[in-house]
């Protein structure tokens, strides 16, 4: 019963200094670990900005491989609000009936498909495909586009053994450039066309701004969703009774989704850049240095969560920060939640049990910490009801 566990490597540091340290390409990061401190720093956008050099608030930093500013993610208030208002209604579409019906069909189909196979490598063979197909809905782009995205592999920036792969990033940037050009020539009902029509301060968004939203949409929801889905499969493999429970009590699905997302925290942390000399947990933070808001640690904070290292699928009060906190909370959260809710509704209807055949954990190296965030590969057999 431990293949699906995600240990909390931050507990000791969280309980003592409340901080962790890691280097990242000679631009060190002070990791903020406690839930309340993480919330405070996320709220203090003037002292800890997102609108730094593009790529710098991401850990590992993407400064070396990206010049386009991701929007609205790397913009601070008040400008942030203008961008966010432009895109927010589009990113709430997953709540619409037609959207969730198609998503449900997609997930039904892929579950049916894996049930016919003797073994499935979940990361590439299930999660990446599920994520890519669902992304065609979010972009409102033809279903066939998913095949191109699947062919890029699991991480658009990372290839095996190389955390920051400039060549791979260029595949994505070139692809987005082409699609923007296409949408300029032949506007449709997709996200590119919507953004090209959108106005801020009475002016149409520039090509670079459109690109910034699109890069965010592709990059932000890729390995996060893949990890959430893959970790869920591993969890249900070791907890077949939970599948039964969800089938009998579908009203539990929402709580279960929030709990799995808290426990998995698919995005370990997100950085900010200090705009002035300041302090966190009585520790000096120098102007122009980086901190990170460690969602994964905050979500195991024993001062707020009872039995934080246990998955309690019907946990009722669950003030987790897996989708961030405050102004910059996750734009794709509605889409991600809808994927997880649909998955947790579909699996229990069709799947009796899941056997783990082989796996290799994906361990992040974060200075003094090593954190399991998911799997490099996970081979399973899905067994029919």
């Amino acid at each position, binding site marked *: 019963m431990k293949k699906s566990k995600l240990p909390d490597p931050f507990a000791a540091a969280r309980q003592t200094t409340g901080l962790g340290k890691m280097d990242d390409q000679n631009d060190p990061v002070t990791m903020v670990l406690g839930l*309340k401190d993480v*919330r*405070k720093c996320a*709220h203090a956008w003037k002292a800890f900005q997102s609108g730094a050099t593009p790529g710098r608030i991401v850990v590992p930093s993407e400064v070396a491989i990206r010049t386009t500013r991701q929007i609205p993610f790397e913009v601070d*208030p008040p400008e942030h*609000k203008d961008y966010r208002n432009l895109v927010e209604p589009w990113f709430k579409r997953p709540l619409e009936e037609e959207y969730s019906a198609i998503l449900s069909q997609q997930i039904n189909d892929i579950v049916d498909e894996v049930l016919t196979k003797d073994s499935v490598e979940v990361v590439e063979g299930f999660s990446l495909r599920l994520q890519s197909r669902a992304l065609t809905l979010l972009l409102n782009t033809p279903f066939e586009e998913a095949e191109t995205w699947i062919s890029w592999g699991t991480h658009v920036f990372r290839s095996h053994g190389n955390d920051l792969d400039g060549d791979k990033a260029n595949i994505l940037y070139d692809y987005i450039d082409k699609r923007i050009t296409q949408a300029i020539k032949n506007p449709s009902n997709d996200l590119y066309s919507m953004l090209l029509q959108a106005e801020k301060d009475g002016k149409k968004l520039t090509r670079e701004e459109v690109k910034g939203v699109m890069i965010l949409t592709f990059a932000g929801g890729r390995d996060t969703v893949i990890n959430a889905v893959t970790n869920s499969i591993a969890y249900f493999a070791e907890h077949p009774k939970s599948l039964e429970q969800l089938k009998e009590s579908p009203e539990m699905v*929402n*709580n279960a*989704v*929030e709990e799995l997302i808290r426990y998995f925290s698919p995005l370990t942390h997100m950085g900010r850049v200090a705009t002035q000399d300041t302090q966190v947990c009585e520790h000096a933070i120098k102007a122009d240095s980086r901190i990170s808001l460690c969602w994964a640690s905050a979500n195991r904070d024993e001062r*707020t969560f009872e039995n934080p290292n246990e998955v309690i699928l019907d*946990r*009722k*009060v*669950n*003030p*987790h*920060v897996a*989708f961030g906190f*405050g*102004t910059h*909370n996750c734009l794709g*959260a*509605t889409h991600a*939640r809808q994927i997880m809710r649909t998955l947790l509704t579909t699996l229990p209807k069709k799947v009796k049990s899941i056997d783990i055949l082989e796996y290799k954990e994906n361990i992040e190296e974060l200075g003094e910490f090593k954190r399991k965030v998911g799997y490099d590969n996970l081979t399973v057999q899905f067994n029919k009801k």
Partner: protein
Amino acid sequence: MAKITFITRDNETIELEGTSGSVMQLAVDNNVAGIDGDCGGVCSCATCHVHVAPEHQAKTGEATEIETDMLELNDYANEQSRLCCQMEISEELDGIVLQVAESD
């Protein structure tokens, strides 16, 4: 059965009736503007923030510590603040008036 009145940010008054479930779910099911309930009611998103009229606070009770912590950094929170996903519908709530709080 409890009658619950929402006043939206645009000052629209919406009167609803409910028997069970959370006040947030009642509002979401009836499209009360400004109550999103993104997290489905686990007190993680604060998109169901309301102000309880002072004369009705005895009925709703005070916010829990988890709610207070969530709202501590919210510029629009005050002593009348509640996250209405944490309010269960019951006869006791009959007649309450909830003002949908502002948000950033």
